[in-house]
């Protein structure tokens, strides 16, 4: 196999942090290389240096035998290096077809040939097996579809080295299969692939070799067969063994906190279920099955067409999130970046914003700032959020820490029913384990949790019951003794559309 990329002793520092310390690695053509490590291990920094988004402080990078002396995003793309990032960034108000040809619209004399553009895009998508209307605007697609389109866009440009950063976080199993097929095809064509994921099972499934980073240093590069199984990889990444990843405590089931009857919305039908205090109820389903929509409707973020909701046995009307919060419901949204964080604000603000109602001075409408600071610094400590201080801007924290901040918001006393929508999306193993631990702490305080996830092992690991949603309807409910991946998956497909397209 031919050497494609060689990174030699590359270092990079940011004020106060040595993000990469003399890291070297070689990727050959036709190789799928896993890149793993905890958040903050330096994976993203390394990728950004390879794609030219950051400048390295020292070290050398060779691509196809030639040294890249001065790298920047344009140079790396010209060389054939592409990256698909976690935060999918494509022009939202533009159709899929046009997104494919942004900057190189087909046509003559500056007049766009729309028909040719659509046909070319359609033909290409058919070839790779992605079935979606190319005339749709990007903003109308689901997160998973957006990502597949982004990947397709990269494939269109004949990449030599393609880097996937946490690509399956939002994908359903079918899309994941499609992605893996694409990766194998790339590999057969002699392209190199760097695959970053916190999902180690996937790394084992798709990668030939795996490079482990820890605290900016190279731990080593191994053949996947050498490592044999996931359990052997984790200690290398974290430097310790994680006991009981899925921490499950037995909590006595208390009174009924939430009851939903015959709830109908635009994307779901006749949803009924109950939730008791001390319970963790899982919502499982393929992406787009309506899990998020049901949660949003209960929280008042989307309209309810009909049906009733009971909180503590009383029938309630929830017109907006404010009503829901006043009833003690909290919601951690699916998309942290777009719906969760307040990017320009600091950690304190991001935690306190839903809690100001409890932080007012008596007889005045001023916020009690000492109390507010206490609340946020206590929670920062309790959740071991890694931040230089509560005055630090949230956008500068790692994804896992941002997620913990958003979670912290709801951990104050008033949220009795906590709805968590994909809370462990794109965060590292250590942070995941901490979040599971927290959820079990929460239900111990006679609260309850609805846990929405596409990742079966975690649902099976921590839930008391799992509600499976298929195409907007409840396909079944399993209690802890009955959990198995096969049964859950089968239920999830129960009402699935005949043709399993990406829609």
């Amino acid at each position, binding site marked *: 196999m031919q050497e494609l990329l060689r990174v030699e002793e590359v270092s990079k520092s940011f004020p106060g942090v040595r993000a990469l310390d003399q890291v070297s690695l070689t990727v050959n053509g036709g190789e799928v290389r896993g890149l793993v490590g905890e958040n903050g291990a330096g994976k993203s920094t390394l990728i950004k240096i390879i794609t030219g988004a950051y400048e390295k402080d020292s070290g050398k990078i060779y691509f196809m035998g030639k040294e890249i002396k001065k790298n920047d995003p344009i140079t790396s793309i010209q060389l054939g290096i592409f990256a698909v990032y976690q935060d999918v960034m494509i022009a939202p108000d533009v159709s899929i077809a046009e997104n494919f040809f942004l900057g190189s619209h087909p046509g003559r004399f500056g007049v766009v040939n729309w028909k040719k553009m659509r046909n070319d895009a359609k033909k290409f998508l058919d070839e790779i097996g992605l079935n979606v209307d190319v005339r749709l605007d990007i903003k109308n697609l689901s997160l998973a579809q957006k990502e597949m389109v982004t990947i397709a866009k990269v494939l269109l440009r004949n990449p030599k080295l393609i880097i996937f950063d946490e690509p399956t976080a939002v994908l359903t199993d079918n899309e994941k299969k499609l992605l893996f097929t694409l990766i194998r095809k790339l590999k057969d064509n002699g392209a190199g692939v760097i695959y970053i994921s916190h999902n180690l099972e996937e790394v084992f499934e798709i990668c030939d070799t795996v490079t482990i980073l820890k605290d900016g240093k190279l731990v080593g590069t191994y053949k996947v067969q050498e490592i044999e199984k996931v359990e052997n990889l984790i200690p290398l990444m974290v430097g310790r063994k994680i006991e009981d990843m899925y921490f499950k405590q037995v909590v006595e089931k208390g009174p009924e906190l939430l009851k939903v009857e015959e709830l109908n919305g635009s994307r779901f039908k006749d949803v009924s279920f109950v939730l008791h205090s001390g319970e963790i109820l899982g919502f499982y389903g393929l992406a787009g099955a309506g899990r998020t929509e049901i949660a949003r409707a209960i929280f008042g973020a989307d309209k309810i067409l009909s049906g009733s909701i009971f909180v503590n046995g009383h029938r309630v009307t929830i017109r907006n999130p404010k009503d829901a*919060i006043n009833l003690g419901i909290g*919601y951690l949204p699916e998309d942290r970046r777009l719906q969760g964080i307040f990017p320009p*604000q*600091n950690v304190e*603000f991001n935690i306190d*914003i839903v809690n*100001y109602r409890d932080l007012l001075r008596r007889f005045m409408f001023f916020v009690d700032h000492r109390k507010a600071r206490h609340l946020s610094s206590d929670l920062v400590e309790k959740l071991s959020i890694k931040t230089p*201080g509560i005055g630090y801007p949230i956008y500068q924290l790692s994804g896992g820490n941002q997620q913990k901040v958003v979670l912290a918001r709801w951990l104050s006393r008033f949220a009795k029913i906590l709805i968590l929508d994909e809370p462990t999306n794109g965060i590292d193993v250590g942070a995941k384990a901490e979040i599971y631990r927290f959820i079990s702490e929460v239900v111990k305080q006679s609260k309850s949790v609805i846990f929405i996830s596409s990742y079966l092992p975690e649902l099976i690991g921590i839930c008391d019951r799992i509600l499976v949603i298929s195409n907007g309807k409840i396909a079944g409910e399993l209690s802890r003794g009955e959990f198995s991946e096969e049964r859950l998956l089968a239920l999830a497909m129960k009402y699935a559309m005949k043709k399993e397209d990406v829609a």
Partner: protein
Amino acid sequence: MKGKASSNKRTVLGEKNLLIIFAVLVVLLIFATKGTFLSFGNITNLLRQTSINGVVALAMLFVIVTGGIDLSVGAVVGLSGMVFAMLTSSRLNYQFSSTAAVVIALVVSVMVGAVNGAAVYDLKVPPFIATLGVMTFVRGLVMYISSGRMITGIPSNFVSFSSETLLDMPKLVWLWLVTALIVGLSLKYTRFGRNLYALGSNREAARLSGLNMRLNYYGAYAVSGLLSGLAGIMLASRLAAGVPTAGQGYELDAIASVVIGGASLNGGVGTALGAVIGALLIQTLRNGGNLLGVDPFIMQMAIGLIIVVAVFFDQYVKAGRR
């Protein structure tokens, strides 16, 4: 890794850069004017000149923090002054007292703000367009009620307010600074203020955090109306008349002041202190130019450049930190 909070680094730094620019400018002017700039008379004059625009900048700040913009502030300045002048002059059958007229003018201003809020929140018209429409409407309204003429004959005790001083400082300046203090405290320490930053930082996250969206949007625009109305009354006192074109172009000065003061037009960032210094900076340039006998037209060109350079410098320093 845990440490004491260093409050909001981003805005503090923004103000620090701004203070550096401001200090350099002042030192230069002191030398260039051989000390005249620093004379007590000139300083109070400078502050007086800034006070009215300074209040309008504070009005603008409320809306810019939410990620919107209020182009109607200048028109509301004109409307409020005109309403006041008409109520107190002998134009109408009934002559109002100054106090009653002030209250009515402010109520009218708040109503204009509420209309902005309704257009932006309920009709979902983008703030730029909504307030552009309201601005045009209000300008027309002022012309219509005054028949395009100046209204004189407002009470003399009211007119003298603008030249009175308290502790050797013009009352107009006190009014501005006290307003700035109240605005600063409200933005930083009240739930309403915090909510406005949340709206401007991430609208959807704000909604999902249970904010009362309508109340906060209406609130931001209503406060903007209220403060613009206040500035209108201050201006009427200074001009000793209701002038139909009063406040024209103030919206642009206000935007410039707020942005120079470190606020982001994307919302979520901006402080009262920044808006105060931003307004001072623009007026200092004008004042300094005047003292040095610079052609006022050239001065205007220079101010245009400074707006861009100041914001560029601020962003450059911030980027260097990352």
